């Protein structure tokens, strides 16, 4: 099966949360739980001052866009594309070609600013999983997860360093699951 990746979906402006809700319902009702995973409306907390009073508000980072983590199969594409309020995918020529996913660093930038991670720790990672290190001094190496610190969002992985098994520490943003 294809790897799941993050895509940017165009929605009606001002209706991002409504679209997210509808897409989650459709993913469940159409049995697409193995193809459509997390759906994010990028938001940030801002402080607004009105009449001398400061108030915390939630502001959408990209009005008219949501992020969808999915496997880009024909069926999943159809489900997303036909969700009420969805007007298209970013990175698609619109002539039947599948859209282009976001680059990992782009996803990291957006999710990290929301206190989230590209890798879904609870569902995607387990001790014993094979991973590839994609950033940092050990970039390009493969390893096996020895332990996961969910709170600090780091993993300890065993890699082969100069012929010896060595444990190294990596941030979640530095790894991806090996195929």
């Amino acid at each position, binding site marked *: 099966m294809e790897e799941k990746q993050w895509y940017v979906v165009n929605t*009606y*402006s*001002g209706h991002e*949360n*409504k679209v997210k809700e509808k897409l989650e319902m459709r993913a469940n009702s159409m049995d697409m739980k193995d193809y459509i995973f997390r759906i994010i409306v990028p938001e940030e907390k801002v402080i607004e001052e009105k009449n001398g009073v400061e108030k915390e508000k939630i502001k959408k980072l990209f009005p008219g866009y949501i992020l969808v983590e999915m496997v880009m199969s024909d069926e999943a594409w159809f489900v997303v594309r*036909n969700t*009420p309020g969805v*007007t298209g995918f970013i990175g698609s020529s*619109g*002539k039947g070609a599948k859209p282009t996913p976001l680059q990992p660093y782009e996803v990291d930038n957006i999710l990290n600013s929301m206190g989230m991670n590209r890798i879904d720790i609870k569902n995607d990672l387990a001790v014993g999983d094979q991973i590839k290190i994609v950033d940092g001094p050990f970039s390009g190496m493969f390893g096996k997860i020895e332990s996961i610190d969910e709170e600090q969002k780091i993993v300890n992985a065993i890699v082969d360093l100069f012929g010896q098994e060595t444990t190294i520490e990596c941030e979640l943003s530095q790894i991806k699951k090996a195929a």
Partner: protein
Amino acid sequence: MSRVSVDYFELEKLRRNAIIGSGMETICYQYDKEHVLKLFRFLLANRKIYFEGLTSPNIAFPIDIYEYRETGLIQGILAQRFYGNNLKNGFKEELDIKTLLDAYNEIRKELINYSDIKIMDINSENVLFDKKNKSFRLIETTNWVPSFLSTDANLKKLDDLLMQTICFYNLGIDENFLFTNPYILEIYNRWFNGYDIKDNEIFPEFLSEIQSVARHELGKVKTIGELRRK
């Protein structure tokens, strides 16, 4: 209507013209007062441009196609220049609702004639409203392709864009909006939940209903700006 063959230096000279705008695929240069030159950012061997030479008072079909002399790859197109505001931030407040609906009917009538064309790239940057001539203008046609039975799909794209522009940018209707009128809510829900493709009177119906309610309950309403303030 012709194929214009250019070399590297001729192309560079054209690129020194004033840039009017740019999108993901093209950069739009001023050619003269009546025309623009759209050059592609990326050259694709299999790129095809259709509808060269079609003329329309409201749609910027390709007039000439520019090709790179050495390879024959399509570099860009010459098209008619239209003036107007795009719909990115809604319609201007003083816009008369009747004018808007008349312009809408005019462009719809034209699109109905093009039943063998699939229109693409209908978005708030590629649709202009020419307030002086009271017309909609469609300015990006390089991705339009031949296709049969696409009239309803074409019209739905335009309806969708106009509904979204009016609802969100002009009336401030978003997912938290509280509708007090059941008829307007019904039309709105029909639109949001994906109406039957043949039911393509959503936009004028919505606008007319809002205007009629506002006129009846709050006095005469003529412009988009007045609708919002009500």
